[in-house]
């Protein structure tokens, strides 16, 4: 059981800055995120796209913003639990007991949900029968590429993941690459390589096709793909891979008893606490009258939520308002050398 003053769910910019604010007022915290890296939507959706509305930062990319936030919280040595999703929360004697999908347990008086629009999950194929083959002969990510050796693999998608895996697997397998239109969105270098591999017969490319149906018993035997002009083509295949990016799902949060408004959590604007004492929600996932889904709003919400955590984490102490420019305690926590 890990004991902490606050558990932050979500390692996007809002969660990161909230960790900083907790650190400044002397509270410790740990951060859980379903993704394999820190940064949330900034890293997953737009690492290279410039952002122009961070106060005092005229322009930065999602990746730069994330790196700077990581640097800013470095003095607090915050522990991250990546690739991990919070499944269950229960209140036991004034503390929240939080369980993750990897059976890790936390005991904390405060949970701060900074989950963006939920956790990222792969987008799936539309034909219903696909589900039955999932994780056996149909995958949305690859853990062990050796299983594909000398097999026929049909890869769907036009982005970098689809192209990179088509190139990689073409070394040891027969690869069909299927995409809904002629243009690929992956890096030009990869597109050129794919075209080259097609010419030398290493990859078969089918454009303007989408998956229509899957046939097989225990495992997939063949798939049927449909052209824009409605013509069908059957391909024998051992494995099917789909790379359609990620979609955000609220996930287990819907079962925690929080007041929800569609996919968002209702909070007060004093400290962004939810209807459950000690559970706060900040950033894109929270809603209140006038809510703006901006990173800067998330920063504000995180600063207030951190202070809201104080009374539960240090019930016998008083929190005094201080500036980092003059507070000795804050500067010590930041490791400022004079």
């Amino acid at each position, binding site marked *: 059981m890990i004991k902490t003053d606050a558990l932050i769910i979500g390692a996007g910019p809002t969660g990161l800055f909230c960790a900083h604010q907790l650190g400044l007022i002397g509270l410790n915290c740990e951060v859980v995120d379903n993704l394999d890296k820190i940064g949330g939507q900034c890293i997953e959706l737009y690492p290279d796209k410039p952002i122009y509305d961070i106060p005092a930062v005229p322009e930065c990319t999602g990746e730069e913003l994330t790196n700077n936030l990581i640097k800013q919280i470095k003095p607090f040595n915050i522990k991250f639990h990546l690739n991990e999703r919070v499944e269950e929360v229960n209140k036991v004697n004034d503390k929240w007991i939080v369980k993750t999908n990897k059976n890790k347990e936390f005991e904390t008086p405060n949970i701060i949900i900074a989950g963006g629009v939920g956790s990222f999950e792969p*987008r799936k194929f539309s034909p219903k029968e696909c589900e039955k083959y999932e994780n056996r002969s149909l995958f949305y990510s690859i853990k062990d590429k050796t299983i594909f050796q000398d097999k026929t693999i049909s890869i769907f998608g036009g982005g970098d993941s689809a192209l990179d895996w088509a190139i990689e697997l073409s070394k040891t397998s027969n690869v069909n690459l299927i995409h809904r239109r002629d243009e690929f969105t992956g890096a030009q270098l990869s597109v050129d390589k794919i075209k080259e591999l097609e010419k030398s017969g290493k990859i078969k490319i089918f454009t303007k096709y989408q998956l229509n149906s899957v046939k097989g018993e225990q495992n997939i035997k063949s798939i049927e793909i449909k052209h824009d002009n409605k013509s069908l083509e059957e391909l024998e295949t051992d494995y099917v891979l789909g790379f359609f990016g990620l979609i955000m799902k609220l996930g287990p949060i819907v079962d925690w008893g929080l007041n929800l408004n569609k996919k968002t959590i209702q909070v007060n604007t004093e400290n962004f606490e939810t209807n459950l004492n000690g559970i706060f929600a900040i950033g894109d996932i929270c809603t209140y009258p006038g809510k703006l889904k901006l990173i800067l709003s998330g920063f504000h919400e995180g600063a207030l939520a951190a202070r809201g955590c104080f009374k539960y984490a240090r019930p016998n102490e008083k929190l005094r308002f201080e500036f980092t420019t003059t507070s000795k305690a804050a500067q010590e926590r930041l490791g400022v050398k004079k």
Partner: protein
Amino acid sequence: MPKITYLEDSGKSHTIEVSNGLSVMEGAVQNDIPGIDADCGGGMACATCHVYVKEEWFDKLPKKEDGEEDMLDMAFEPKQNSRLSCQILVSDELDGLTVSIPSKQG
């Protein structure tokens, strides 16, 4: 105000007045039309405000930008007449526009 019709996958139809300058997505979200999630809030970053535009209207809409087509690759069951509703701005010329909402957004 221009009238926009949103057709749910079930066949249920909602005709709503949407102010000029709002997107077709915003018109749906502000009026609680089910089936348009718009997770990213209109940033062309999620493909969860995907709609099908009736053919007679499709060609009348301003052309897609590159980024929109890239996002449509990720959409659930994209078709030739797919658009992201956050990228369609309402104007008087679009009075009477009908969009169909897919069975799900992903």
